[in-house]
């Protein structure tokens, strides 16, 4: 919902001097905070209450998610650069950075898709030599019982125990939370792409008329920040003991 109201808003004098749409965006983000807050709260309430595995420590791969987190953070940076380019009125640079923001965002979503499919088909491995030496998760403990039987190959027991939204409480809460975050990112990409294509039409995106370039980054950075919270609370606290 872009140009008409934007135009309208820019001309209308307001009590506070702030633009209507910008204020609406802030109100929306406040509301969205409660939305994610509730999802995260649900996740935390059900942490460690799953009856069956897999659990976070079984499936999470912190290095992979760190990379995807880094990608998303970089997208925020390129968003800033795009905005800066627009204010300098260099449309070409602006388009490059805007497109790279979209690509980085899409990469993050791609990571998420990869992660979801991996989790759903996760192959659990237990090295029988570790049994009794290392601390094992309950699921691995269960697998370890097969050590010494004919299921064991070269000292390793393997089994696919996928994590789906139906598997356990962890699955339900994890996929719902991160899925909605992914949906937010996807929506942001659609918005940014719309702006990207609009910028080719004369006069649609200009330094003077850049309100959407005020709002879209606001949204984009917000979604980024939410991810940092999710990464910390879900991934890091999920894997490192003591949380």
């Amino acid at each position, binding site marked *: *919902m*872009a*140009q*008409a*109201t934007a*135009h*309208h808003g820019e001309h209308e004098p*307001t*009590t*506070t001097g*702030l633009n*209507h749409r910008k*204020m*609406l965006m802030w*109100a*929306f983000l*406040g*509301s*969205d905070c*409660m*939305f994610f*807050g*509730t*999802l995260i709260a*649900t996740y935390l*309430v*059900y942490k460690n*209450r*799953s*009856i069956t595995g897999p659990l976070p420590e079984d499936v999470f791969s912190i290095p992979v998610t760190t990379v995807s987190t880094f990608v998303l953070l970089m997208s925020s940076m390129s968003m800033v650069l795009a905005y800066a380019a627009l204010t300098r009125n260099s449309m070409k640079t602006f388009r490059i950075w805007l497109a790279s923001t979209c690509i980085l965002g899409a990469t993050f979503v791609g990571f998420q898709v990869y992660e979801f499919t991996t989790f759903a088909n996760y192959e659990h491995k237990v090295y029988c030599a570790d049994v009794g030496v290392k601390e094992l998760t309950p699921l691995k403990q269960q697998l370890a019982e097969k050590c010494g039987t004919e299921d064991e190959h070269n000292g390793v027991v393997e089994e696919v125990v996928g994590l789906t*939204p*139906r598997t*356990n*409480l962890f*699955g*339900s*809460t994890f996929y*719902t939370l991160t899925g909605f975050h992914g949906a937010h990112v996807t929506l942001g990409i659609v918005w940014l792409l719309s702006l990207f294509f609009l910028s080719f*039409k*004369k*006069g*649609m995106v200009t330094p003077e008329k850049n309100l959407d370039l005020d709002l879209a980054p606001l949204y984009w950075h917000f979604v980024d920040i939410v991810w940092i919270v999710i990464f910390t609370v879900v991934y890091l606290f999920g894997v490192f003991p003591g949380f």
Partner: protein
Amino acid sequence: MTTMAFPIPRPTHPTGIWNWITTIDHKKIGVLYGVTAFILFLTGGIEALLMRIQLAGPNQDIVSAEIFNQLFTMHGTTMIFLAIMPLSAAFFNFVIPLQIGARDVAFPRLNAFSYWTFLAGAIILKISWFTGGATNAGWFGYAPLTSVQQNPGTGIDYWIVSLQVLGIASLAASFNFLVTIINMRAPGMSFMRLPLFTWMTFITNILIVLAFPVITVALIELYFDRSFGMNFFNVARGGDPVLWQHLFWVFGHPEVYILILPAMGIVSEILPTFSKKPLFGYPAIVLAGAIIAFMGWMVWSHHMFTVGLGPIPVTVFTITTMAIAVPTGIKVFNWMGTMWGGSMDFKTPMLYAIGFVAMFTIGGISGVMHSMASSDAQQQDTYFIVAHIHYVLFGGAIFAIFAGIYYWFPKITGRMYSETLGKINFWITMVGFNLAFFPQHFLGLDGMPRRIYTYDASMGWNLWNGVSTAGVIILAIGILIFMHNIVKSWRKGELAGGDPWDGRTLEWSIPSPPPEYNFAEIPTVYDRDDWWARKRREVRRGVPVAGGSGEDEHHDIHLPQPSYWPLVVAIGLFIGGIGLVYPVGMYAISMVGVFIGTVAVYAWSFEPVNDPEEGEQAAH
């Protein structure tokens, strides 16, 4: 600026049905909200009447157990989401821009979208009566009674989808009104000069913005459980039914204030007007409203005192809940301070406003009674609570809404209602209401649980149930008189003039009904109750005060033009929502809804700019 992706001109229907469908005028949308919500209020009333007839005597068999359960669930959901909230929204729409001296809300099309989406949500809920049974798990929908194992029918799904759609409508409206109130006040209208109704609307909308996402998430989780076999509330997989209760009441308690704060705002307008005195302790009332809203977030577990939270949480929530009585008391006392020493004119709005104070006090006191967990252990889930909620929401919210309807009726229609009928309506409603609900206190203390479709003759509940049903019938007669009065007066009431009540706030400074642009010239505000002060200043100076300014010569006022797209987006939401009710094989329908919605959102975005000249260009 002339490149349009969707070069459909804006509609220009000055009158007729298309005018109502495409309107983005906040006053018309307010009327649409009001009329729709009142019709829905009547449906909720009929549901209540059926229940009361079933309970009029012991062991009756007028409706079946299953139907009874659907009736009380639908009654609760209807009255809260389809009656009181949208009736309040009707006043937000009509009154707020007038009170702050604005020509419209900040986002007129978003406002139309809120209305149509609300209507879509209402239809989704109400059609569930005809699609194999309405929801039957209570308006609170406690897990695991809402699970697919317990409740395989589509009633619960209709309920979930309807509440989600209504949530979108409420959130959109709230963003809109927050921005409007912050950003569109007339020059000089500082926050501490805002009319009290605007203040309470502001606070209410903050609550909506923060509370609705919580129920949205809870409903999403429930929907995922039901449709995709997830485990959020699945006991067999370790899910905890109490989590639903927490999520529901974290939303549900602020929701209570969402229902009552606008009513308090309306009363705070009427009492000063008809007492000819300014509101007593304006800052205290504003602050009390804010404190209520803030503390409303810290008391949700008082709905769960019997859930077994343990004595320490129960103690904490007992104390916070008792504490919330203090700001509520401040409001009541300040209203009385407003009337004290006044020159009280008992027009119908004033009667309803005083009735509100009298009845809300009873509801408030019974509220304190079950804020104390120990005595609540006996009252929770009994008719005592039913009595309490109706004293707060009928004697409170609905009385205030009736007061508001009578108060602003001349402003909305330009005509005066019949005062005699209004008084008859008030007294019949008052008597019927007290007969219907006061005895329910006795029933509750006598151990009658709520939500039971039958009871045995030996329980000693026969008399008061009979009285209660008789009261509801009297109440219904009162409502009929009200409708008669409104319909008749709307068509041929006396002309009211711009300022029939010697009003205090800006809406009375313009003609009735207000012209499309509201204010010929945006007023500059120098005082709280500015219009009253302006009139008195001019009287002192010996200048006669006209009953409103606003000559019809300002034809060049810039007003946004009507639009089709808000309605189309709402239709998309409606179709998409219906699709979600039937997950198997119906996603195709959802996709149709999503497609319509997406196209409409883009069309909305690229709709021709509403400069008058440009609008003409587009029309060529």
